[in-house]
């Protein structure tokens, strides 16, 4: 059998891609110029502000999970189980926060809910206030942005889970005298547990690695990601490395705990898997109430996108104290499309996201086939490995790659990649692996293994089986995972800011550049383009 080496080869590749670089960073935190030392770790531990930041990161992440769950789960239930006019359109709209690019998305929030933003101004006007009614700053502001952008995970996962819960489970509970609430608590929720745990994991990791929101809104509120960047900017590389290690540690613990939740008593659903039909709201009041609320909520969700579009149409420096912009122009888009230098980032982002997505899918397929087919020992290891990048915050991964691949030492598998065109797509690829693997593994598990055997008994080789049987059947999973991975890579900011070069400068960096030139309009125009591409890709990816 030649299979064993292939599995080990994949393990080696994955370890080299991200485990090894992160380990190097961790090692750097306990290694000084004169050998091993705990001096840097001690300096970190002595510092109350570092504890504050660590605690901040942790509780913000936990609170983000709670908030996102509280919004996302009921919303999913409403859209999956009730039928009312506009349900389909609204159901799609509700997923829109997923396509708001990180950096400009946060800026849209500023224009909308900031103290000089639209909503604050309207309220001040209405209530006759001299001061803005609030300041969008600190933990509250970060949580607002997180809740807005991350409830989508709970929403999508819960909907997918609900669609798989057999209607007869619910009916069985009802016929056994179990009321709606008890049925939900005792039957539906436990059945959704794997999906809920997966959504919680994704939210927790995203919140833990979140950079844009604390960067823009944090003010004095400390979290680890901004702390790392601040230390690095201050030239205190050692402290940055220790901070990165601490954050990675917290993330790994989160991954471990939540994954155990997701896997504990993995539930095999027995049944046809026919979801209950959505209940049509027949009463006019309930019907129109639901529709009205639905649309109100939809508009609320769309406001940041709309704000971004409005900002992209505002001539430079004209929107100051007015409620709405005094003038509109398409000049910002003109700049973007007519100057080849400004079009480049768009092209860069597109090719890098494509390469990263294709690469991640290849790795995920490779891993998936090994995991599904084999009974062997490497299976668990591979499964864990492909999910580990979840737990590496973007900032940490970027620093790790920059550290590992900044010197030439082939005998320890280190080459100079920093400053080359390779490193940024590589970083995207690593970050895309868990996204692609999550979707593809789930897809592969649903495939009947006898299909593979049937193909090989008909004389199809390994490649032909993959091409003619596995891939076509995996299409929905591939599309969904691929679309999400592509959109993520396209909008990436945190890793890009550390690793980009002139040849690979992506959209997010060009947005930052425009911001540095106080050119918010052009930045927003880039944001709108990014948003449209992401939305288009996600639309293709989620089409059944």
């Amino acid at each position: 059998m030649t299979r064993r080496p292939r599995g080990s080869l994949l393990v080696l590749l994955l370890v080299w891609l991200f485990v090894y670089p992160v380990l190097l960073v961790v090692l750097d935190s306990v290694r000084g110029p004169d050998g091993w030392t705990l001096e840097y770790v001690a300096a970190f531990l002595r510092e109350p502000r570092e504890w504050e930041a660590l605690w901040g990161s942790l509780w913000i992440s936990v609170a983000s999970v709670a908030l996102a769950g509280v919004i996302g789960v009921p919303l999913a239930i409403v859209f999956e189980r009730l039928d009312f006019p506009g349900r389909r359109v609204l159901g799609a709209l509700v997923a829109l926060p997923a396509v708001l690019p990180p950096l400009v998305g946060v800026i849209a929030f500023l224009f909308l809910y900031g103290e000089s933003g639209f909503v604050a101004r309207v309220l001040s006007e209405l209530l006759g206030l001299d001061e803005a009614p609030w300041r969008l700053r600190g933990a509250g502001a970060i949580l607002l942005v997180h809740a807005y952008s991350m409830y989508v995970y709970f929403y999508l996962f819960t909907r997918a889970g609900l669609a798989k819960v057999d209607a007869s489970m619910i009916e069985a509970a009802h016929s056994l005298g179990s009321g709606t609430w008890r049925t939900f608590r005792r039957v539906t929720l436990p059945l959704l547990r794997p999906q809920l745990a997966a959504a919680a994991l994704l939210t927790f990791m995203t919140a833990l690695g979140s950079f844009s929101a604390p960067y823009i809104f944090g003010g004095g509120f400390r979290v680890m990601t901004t702390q790392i960047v601040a230390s690095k900017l201050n030239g205190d590389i050692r402290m940055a490395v220790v901070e990165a290690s601490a954050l990675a540690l917290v993330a790994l613990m989160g991954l471990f705990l939540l994954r155990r939740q997701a896997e504990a008593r993995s539930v095999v659903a027995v049944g046809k898997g026919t979801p209950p039909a959505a209940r049509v709201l027949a009463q006019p009041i309930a019907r129109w109430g639901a529709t009205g609320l639905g649309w109100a909520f939809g508009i609320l969700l769309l406001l940041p996108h709309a704000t971004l579009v409005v900002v992209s149409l505002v001539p430079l420096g004209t929107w100051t104290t007015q409620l709405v912009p005094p003038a509109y122009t398409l000049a910002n888009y003109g700049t973007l499309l007519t100057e080849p230098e400004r079009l480049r980032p768009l092209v860069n982002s597109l090719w890098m996201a494509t390469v990263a997505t294709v690469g991640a899918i290849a790795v995920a397929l490779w891993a998936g086939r090994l995991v599904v087919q084999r009974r062997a020992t490497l299976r668990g290891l591979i499964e864990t490995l492909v999910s580990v990048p979840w737990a590496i915050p973007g900032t940490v991964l970027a620093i790790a790659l920059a550290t590992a691949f900044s010197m030439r030492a082939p005998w320890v598998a280190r080459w100079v990649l920093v400053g080359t065109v390779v490193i940024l797509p590589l970083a995207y690829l690593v970050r895309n692996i868990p996204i692609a693997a999550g979707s593809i593994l789930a897809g592969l598990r649903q495939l009947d293994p006898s299909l593979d055997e049937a193909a090989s008994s008909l004389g199809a080789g390994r490649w032909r089986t993959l091409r003619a049987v596995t891939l076509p059947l995996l299409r929905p999973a591939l599309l969904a995972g691929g679309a999400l991975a592509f959109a993520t890579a396209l909008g990436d900011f945190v890793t890009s800011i550390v690793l980009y070069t002139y040849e690979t400068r992506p959209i997010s960096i060009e947005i930052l550049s425009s911001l540095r030139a106080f050119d918010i309009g052009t930045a927003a125009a880039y944001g709108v383009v990014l948003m449209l591409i992401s939305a288009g890709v996600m639309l293709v990816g989620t089409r059944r």
Partner: protein
Amino acid sequence: MSDAFLEVSHLTKRFGDHVAVGDLSLSVPRGAVLALLGPSGSGKTTTLRLLAGFERPDTGTIAVEGRDVTALPPVQRRFGMVFQHYALFPHLTVGENVAFGLAGQGTRADRDARVTEMLSLVDLDGFGGRQVGELSGGQQQRIAVARALAPEPRVLLLDEPLSNLDPSLRERTRLEMRAALDRVGITTVFVTHEQEEAFALGDSVAVLNHGRLEQVGTPPELYEHPRTLFVATFVGRASVLGGVVTGDGRVRIDAGVEWPVDASQELAAGDRASLVVRPEAVRFAEAGLAGIVTERRYTGARALFTVSVSGGRVEIEAPAHAVSVGDPVHLDVERALAFPEVKE
């Protein structure tokens, strides 16, 4: 019927333009087992779901012991249901599944006792701590029955209770289930598409087609005195031939022979009729309907022959070596049923 325990009157359910159940009336005496028999799409499952309360009828009523329960939601209806795929909760143990419907009833000890009792009823003593996934299909089916019976429902509903079992298991499970139902003495309605199952389990059988009740009766009534062509052909083996009524209980079939019939309904001379012939009511003869043997299915001492005749095929049960495939034969009939011809 005033002694009916479960009474269904003029039940109608439409899904859009499609009439799933049309003007259905049934009554089941206390402790009796009623089978709802019909092909897929006949409305039998919808009827069951209407009884359980998962669907609301457009018109009609459902009453238990004379009390209207049509508006009661499933939670309050106290009808136990066994689902086709059992719908056991995979996250709960066998014992927790059986105890699910007992929430809030009596003490913890009472509930445990009831669970033990139920497990014993279905011959699965000591299985309480098992995971649902560890059970075989047959065991899952029995647990589903135990779970449904635990809260002492007024009526037990079963949706294709045996369809997910291996054929080898079915016979035994059927016997065990019938024994369990008799022991509990519960009024039961179950759905099946298999005549054999309906006849073996049901005290009476209601045959449904296109959402309408074709006939309800005991198995012998249905087999020997079907009231419609559908019941005649759906219940038991039968061959159908076309013909014209000639008067005084005879029909001239299209192949040219005249046969005596039991006309079930008002058939006047000259009407087109469909002739239904049971395999055991035909025999090979010296003269009569001419045909050629095309198939022989061996079942032991006797065999089932298919004879191709002008205008159709006829199945005949006869000693295994009576004729051979390819032989020209003549058929005579002992008894045939005639129904008005249905134009497709």
